């Protein structure tokens, strides 16, 4: 699996590992599915993804703003919202829920 490091333009925070679904990565040129990100919250991590792949925030979050209805974000195995903290060395997992037809 390809890996990359994405640096958020925020204060120094501990890196977390973010994994996104292949279906999401496919929407963006040269996007990888697993990467290290410096972020303290789920929202910051998504900001960092959007900085690297413009438009990705729109695919994960809606305009409320909230995680989209059919997307789940897990942090260390716990389903999380945008304001959830990312402790050092967290695993953040973006998943597509079972839906569609």
């Amino acid at each position, binding site marked *: 699996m390809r890996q990359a490091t994405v640096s958020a333009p925020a204060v120094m925070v501990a890196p977390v590992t973010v994994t996104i679904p292949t*279906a999401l990565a496919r929407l963006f040129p040269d996007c990888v599915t697993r990467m290290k990100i410096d972020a303290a919250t789920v929202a910051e991590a998504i900001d960092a993804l959007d900085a690297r792949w413009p*438009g990705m925030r*729109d*695919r994960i979050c*809606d*305009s*409320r703003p909230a995680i*989209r209805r*059919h997307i789940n974000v897990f942090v260390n195995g716990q389903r999380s919202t945008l304001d959830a903290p990312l402790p050092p060395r967290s695993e953040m997992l973006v998943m597509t829920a079972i839906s*569609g037809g």
Partner: protein
Amino acid sequence: MPEKVVQLVATAKGLFVFESEDGRKSWSQRGPFCETWPLNHAIGDPATETIFAGGGDAWFGPAVWRSDDLGRTWSHSSEGLAYAEGEEPIKTVWSLARKGNSLYAGVEPAGLFRSDDDGATWTHIDGLQRHPSRPEWHPGGGGLILHSIVTDPADPKRIWVGISAAGVFYTSDGGETWEPRNRGTRADFMPEDMREPEFGQCVHNIVMAPGGRDVLYQQNHCGMYRSDDGGRQWVSIENGLPSSFGFPVASHPRDPSTLFLLPLNGDIAGRYVPDAKAAVWRSRDRGETWQALREGLPQENAYFNVLRQAMATDTADPAGVYFGSNSGSLYASADEGDNWVRVTQHLPKISSVETMVVAG
């Protein structure tokens, strides 16, 4: 110069592109594109050969896709394609229209957006949301969707939109102010003394006749109409048709008196072609009289319907006419509807068919 006729077929699972370089005798098929997203509408700009496709994915939200090379490579964006924080998020893009350098997108819940950079970023035309009737708009069966966008070729500030089931609204100032234009159209689903309201009609599709900038045709849930004054007054043209119900209407590219309809058997009768026999109905006299065109179309056991944006004409001469069914079949006529061939079958549900004629 030889012509290439392109059909853009948006489906529940991506966009398909059909091309003919031999005068519409044979068609090549490519796709599906746009990562098989559910798409509601795709249009092409023959001047730049750019394709735009609008829709929404169950997971990743709404977007407008764009290809500058007839579908080989794609980008997508929804930047700015959003309502204010706290409001119901946009579910999907329903309709697209190109006018000069502006691209318009109609969305669900009903609203209109404009892009002046070919779909990279979007601006909400909030004048429509400010209309005093907005709190009273109620969704039709397909949702509260803005599905028809008609622009005046001579005046970019004049725009008509069709919203299900709020009706037709018109702006003459580029979207700052809007007025309902539904007089003469029926709302048979309302109580008897409320069947011609100012707004709330279930418009299904509106198109503009070529040349005449104030001649509009409308297929409605309750009837078929023409307006000669930009929608101020509508008159019924359903006499001679097998049904008052259907979704698509398509105008001839050059003759303002010719239009095409595909009536269905009724809103609670199954919504398939009447008697399970497919026909496109053509009028040559602005809807005064109608002719059923059946040559090459299935005349038994046809239980499909054709959705509101799934019929189109091309600009070749004679005009081509096309429609796609919800059962995934695509039909084409190269002689204004007299004879038909099935171009393909087994596509996903077809949401829209549009055409583009470019240099071969």
